[in-house]
């Protein structure tokens, strides 16, 4: 019998603490990606700075996250923890995606809305805050939600910079006791345990918002 159930239960606390770290990292980095992405989507409409920013974001989006993680981790002063680097890089990387999502939402707001805001001589902040963004963001909620799941599934990459997330913990306890099969299989199941329910939630969100 190559599967040791008793051992599997023994390592569960370690793995669950890894999962908890994973969830924390995902949530903080996601909030960052949401805010930064929105800022980028708005600044991108400024003529010259916008195109420059577009190029930078395109570069970030088409190069591997893991290299960015390791690169920034190596350059960062040693006082900065891997966890901080991980959250920052994940947040910036995903903001290059969320910026595109916001952009498509903003472009989806019809021209008449802009014109009406202008005709009422609303200040820019009100035009964006009260007219454009509420309509734009509502439409892209499901797409944004997809990136939460995607980000969650990218957190194992933090393994490369030694953050004690789920995969790192599994590797640690698994190789200490020569029980790699159980450790990695449980990791797979834990991932499914989180990502399948969240996929169902996203599908609900799609039904609720995308049809508007």
């Amino acid at each position, binding site marked *: 019998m190559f599967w040791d159930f008793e051992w599997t239960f023994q390592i569960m606390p370690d793995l669950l603490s890894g999962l908890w770290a994973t969830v924390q990292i995902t949530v903080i980095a996601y909030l960052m990606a949401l805010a930064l992405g929105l800022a980028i989507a708005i600044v991108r409409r400024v003529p010259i700075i916008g195109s420059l920013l577009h190029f930078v974001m395109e570069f970030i989006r088409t190069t591997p996250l893991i290299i960015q993680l390791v690169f920034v981790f190596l350059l960062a002063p040693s006082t900065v923890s891997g966890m901080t680097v991980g959250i920052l890089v994940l947040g910036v990387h995903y903001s290059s995606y969320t910026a595109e*999502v916001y952009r498509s939402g903003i472009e989806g707001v019809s021209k008449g809305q802009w014109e009406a805001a202008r005709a009422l001589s609303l200040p820019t902040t009100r035009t964006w805050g009260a007219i454009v963004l509420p309509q734009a963001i509502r439409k892209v909620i499901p797409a944004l939600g997809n990136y939460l799941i995607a980000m969650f*599934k990218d957190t194992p990459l933090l393994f490369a910079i030694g953050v004690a997330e789920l995969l790192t913990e599994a590797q640690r306890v698994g190789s200490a006791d020569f029980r*790699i099969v159980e450790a*990695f299989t449980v*990791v797979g199941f834990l991932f499914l345990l989180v*990502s399948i329910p969240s*996929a169902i939630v996203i599908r609900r969100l799609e039904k609720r918002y995308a049809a508007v």
Partner: protein
Amino acid sequence: MEQIEFLIERLPRFLDGAWVTVQLTLGGSALAFVLAMVFGIMGTAGHWLPRAVSTVYVEVFRGIAALVLMFWMAYALPVATGFQLDDMFAAILALGLNVGAYGAEVVRSAINAVPRAQVEATVALNLSWFQRMRLVVVPQAWAQMLPTFGNLVIELMKATAVAYLIGVADLAAVAQQLREATGETVVAYSGALVLYYLIAQVLILGMRLLERRANRKLGRVTPGGGGPLSLLRPPSVGTRVGVAK
């Protein structure tokens, strides 16, 4: 200047790594494409059994991160079954299975989006199921799949970089080795990032060419307009953002 000399001196090493990355990308894409087509078409079947098989495949392999799959195949599989996969093969298998699951959803929804009347016409013409798929349904769905497939290919290319963690000598591994050997962190990693960026640009261009061809075959005007310059602009106006992941 020193850094540039360093980079030029090491260029062959970088190119070797880039070639492995390209191989991983092409191998993974080929596997993902086949899996996406098979499970995507199964997902549109009338009978519940193929549909259930397709759903299970999609949810399982989409739900597990490619790196976790890769680790499982490289480290857990040999212990559990006694088979040791080649590192490169394990990486391609993990990437293909993972991205194939995303692709299957794309194929399924593209086929379902083909107008019902088209399918009814094939029934009226007494075409077999195979003829219907090959001559009518897939060519129309194909044009719709391609923009999202383009995104997925880029995602897959980026995901190949994790293969260095199981010992594949790709571009990421070259960057790491150069850094360890010389201590030139910035040059080693920037060089790798630029090469990844260039590979991505080539892939994007190739996918746009494919997209154009698919649209032309259906007698549609390419959304970006004609001429070689239009290839530099994103062609698909109606591409849904955020479906790729």
